[in-house]
């Protein structure tokens, strides 16, 4: 039997200190010289699903209820669910391991069609201000919440997971083909704030702290 290999659409100009192969993805756990942050983390290997149904609110992916209002998100047990519109929601499984995908026809796995990145650390919103005109710090919106809008002129789903000082962080996805250029733009925007690539462990400890 031929062993398949999955490639992340993004790569960083940094050396991996520790990595492992998981579900045919090479997952970097830690990079050399990660520093104190802010950090950019590649999460493209994490399972993502699209849920679409006329009565999408009645579906409970992995036991989590889908929020009622478009733009609202919920994070529970490392499952992030974002209500996109009347009939659609996106699901992110953020524990790094592939779950058993529900068999219902409402689910479509979208992991390999897109890139997924997280920016975490105190200066996240200063970096994002250079990349997007969306108001991530709108006091009227309580984290986590979803924006469907442009970042670096690329249509993205952007989820603000925390606006809480040093714990601030956002996660975003876009089509796979934009990966290389998005990383280039984000690293360039974050250079003045000391943005460094970080491995999955940095993200896991951050999300556990929320």
């Amino acid at each position: 039997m031929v062993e398949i290999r999955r490639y992340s659409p993004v790569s960083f100009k940094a050396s991996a200190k520790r990595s492992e192969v998981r579900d045919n993805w090479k997952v970097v756990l830690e990079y050399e010289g990660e520093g104190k942050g802010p950090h950019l983390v590649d999460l493209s290997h994490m399972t993502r699903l699209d849920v679409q149904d006329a009565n999408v609110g009645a579906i409970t992916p992995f036991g989590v209820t889908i929020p009622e209002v478009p733009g609202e998100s919920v994070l529970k047990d490392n499952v992030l669910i974002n209500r996109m519109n009347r009939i659609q929601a996106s699901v992110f499984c953020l524990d790094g391991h592939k779950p058993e995908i529900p068999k219902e026809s409402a689910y479509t796995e979208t992991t390999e069609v897109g890139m997924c990145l997280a920016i975490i650390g105190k200066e996240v919103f200063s970096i994002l201000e250079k990349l997007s005109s969306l108001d991530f710090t709108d006091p009227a919106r309580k984290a986590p919440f979803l924006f469907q809008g442009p970042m670096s002129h690329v249509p993205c789903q952007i989820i603000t997971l925390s606006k809480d000082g040093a714990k601030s962080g956002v996660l975003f996805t876009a089509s796979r083909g934009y990966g290389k250029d998005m990383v280039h733009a984000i690293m360039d925007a974050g250079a003045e704030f000391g943005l460094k690539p970080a491995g999955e462990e940095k993200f896991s400890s951050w999300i556990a702290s929320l």
Partner: protein
Amino acid sequence: MALTITCPVCGKRNGYEFRYGGEDKGPRPDEAGLTPQSWCDYVHMNNCVAGVQKEWWFHKDGCGSWFTIHRNTTTNLQVATPEADR
């Protein structure tokens, strides 16, 4: 002039996130008795209103919704939906 448009899903956003979809011309004409001339008029002819018109927009950089708004073409500002259209 900076245009902002209120998407029914995402709320008020920068006009550059949207693609214009043309004037709202109402429902497609009934095929019974439809002449090439009247079909051509429906497809290609526009009113080009200097004032408030109802028009289609597509949120291309956002949620992907197609929706209608009313816009004043002389000020390039979105205006409230008239009572009659609600």
